[in-house]
């Protein structure tokens, strides 16, 4: 082992709050969120960028936080699952997941909700292909995805798109 790298200061915003982090620059954003900030909603499922359980939004863009070195979070706005609801008021996607049975064991759910929230932000009336594609980076082992798709459709409808008719 060489001389250990020193930790560095990283300033960013997490769920609307300014934070000052002190971490090794290559530390995974995932670990810094979970351990420094105690935001344990974001999960590790694979540590290789395959499963999406670690999904967060950086400046509104969906990323796998296990693949982001914390240095690159400098100056960014990060949203984790803890920032999706507005206080006690759940996001339409969260309510839909409850209503439709989109969560079973729940471990993929934070990442899946983040991906779905992001999908609807980008595409308020997604086609079936958009939904499948938008969630293809989030693996679920329990549900077979069917009720997750339904939840996304329900969330669209509940967000006021009454004319939204899904192919699903």
């Amino acid at each position: 082992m060489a001389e250990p790298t020193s930790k560095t200061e990283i300033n960013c915003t997490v769920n609307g709050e300014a934070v000052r982090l002190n971490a090794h620059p290559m530390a995974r954003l995932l670990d810094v969120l979970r351990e420094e900030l105690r935001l344990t909603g974001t999960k590790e499922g694979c540590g290789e960028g395959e499963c999406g359980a670690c999904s967060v939004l950086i400046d509104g863009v969906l990323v796998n936080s296990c693949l982001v070195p914390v240095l690159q979070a400098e100056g960014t706005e990060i949203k984790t699952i803890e920032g999706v609801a507005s206080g006690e008021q759940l996001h339409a996607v969260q309510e839909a997941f409850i209503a439709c049975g989109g969560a079973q064991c729940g471990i993929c759910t934070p990442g899946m909700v983040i991906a779905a929230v992001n999908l609807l932000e980008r595409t308020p009336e997604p086609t079936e292909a958009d939904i499948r594609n938008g969630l293809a980076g989030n693996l679920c082992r329990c549900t077979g995805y069917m009720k997750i798709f339904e939840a996304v459709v329900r969330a669209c409808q509940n967000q006021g798109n009454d004319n939204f008719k899904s192919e699903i």
Partner: protein
Amino acid sequence: MRAYLPDYELKSPGSLAEALSLLSDEPGVWRPFAGGTDLMVLFEAGRLAHKKFINIWNLPELRGVEVTPEHVTLGALTTYTEVQASEVLRKEFPMLCRAASETGGLAIQNRGTLGGNIANASPAGDSPPALLVYDAELELVSTEGARWLPYEGFHTGYKQMLMRPDELIKSIRLPRPAGPWRHYYRKVGTRKAQAISKICFAGVAQLEGERIADVRIALGSVAPVVVRCARTEDVLKGREIDEETVGAARAELAREISPIDDIRSTANYRLQVALNVLEDFLTNAEYGLKAER
């Protein structure tokens, strides 16, 4: 997470010039770090041997899409998402957009970059076959200035390339097509998303009546580097697409590629499927060269 974190260094240079200085002051000591979608996977597996990285993610000189009458030039940090969002790329270089849409999933596409993909030098990359067929050129920069070289031949062996340790890929330039091309891209992976390719085929052609006036074919995952199949192209040029032509092209391609067995697939599968995809490119009634336009 298997890496020994304190061993690793990542620093953010203030500018491209500063990054290049670092690279030239200590050649080989520092390596560039872009979106991290390849390097972090190695890092987490405890297999990232190199320890000192320069964060180039925020350098604006490495971003952007520039369009001139002759070329479309992409900054090396153009992400797969940005590729898919570009109207000119969708219109004139659709295979690059296809390749981008089939790379990983959205989260990977938001962070993975063309420059990173090229520098990773994997023969299984999804974009390189399209880049080869579109005759891409690379701009490499260092403290000594900039130089252009064709992407074809850039990779000289498995994970090897014609780039000095003090250089960075700055941009990728695509000559805009003159006539109407037919594009055919096919990635054969382990599943529809989040898949490493077993083979990856990119082909473009120009037809004059029934004859193939010009054709370019490139394949990934069938050799130590992504290959432009020039000999197969030669067999096809000037010919009509009939059973004999298809047979001759298949035979030539079989000689031109050298797939292997690995953890994902077999040499024989890769070979047979490459030949089948070539045939499909030529003869598919819906989207091959034989299709009606």
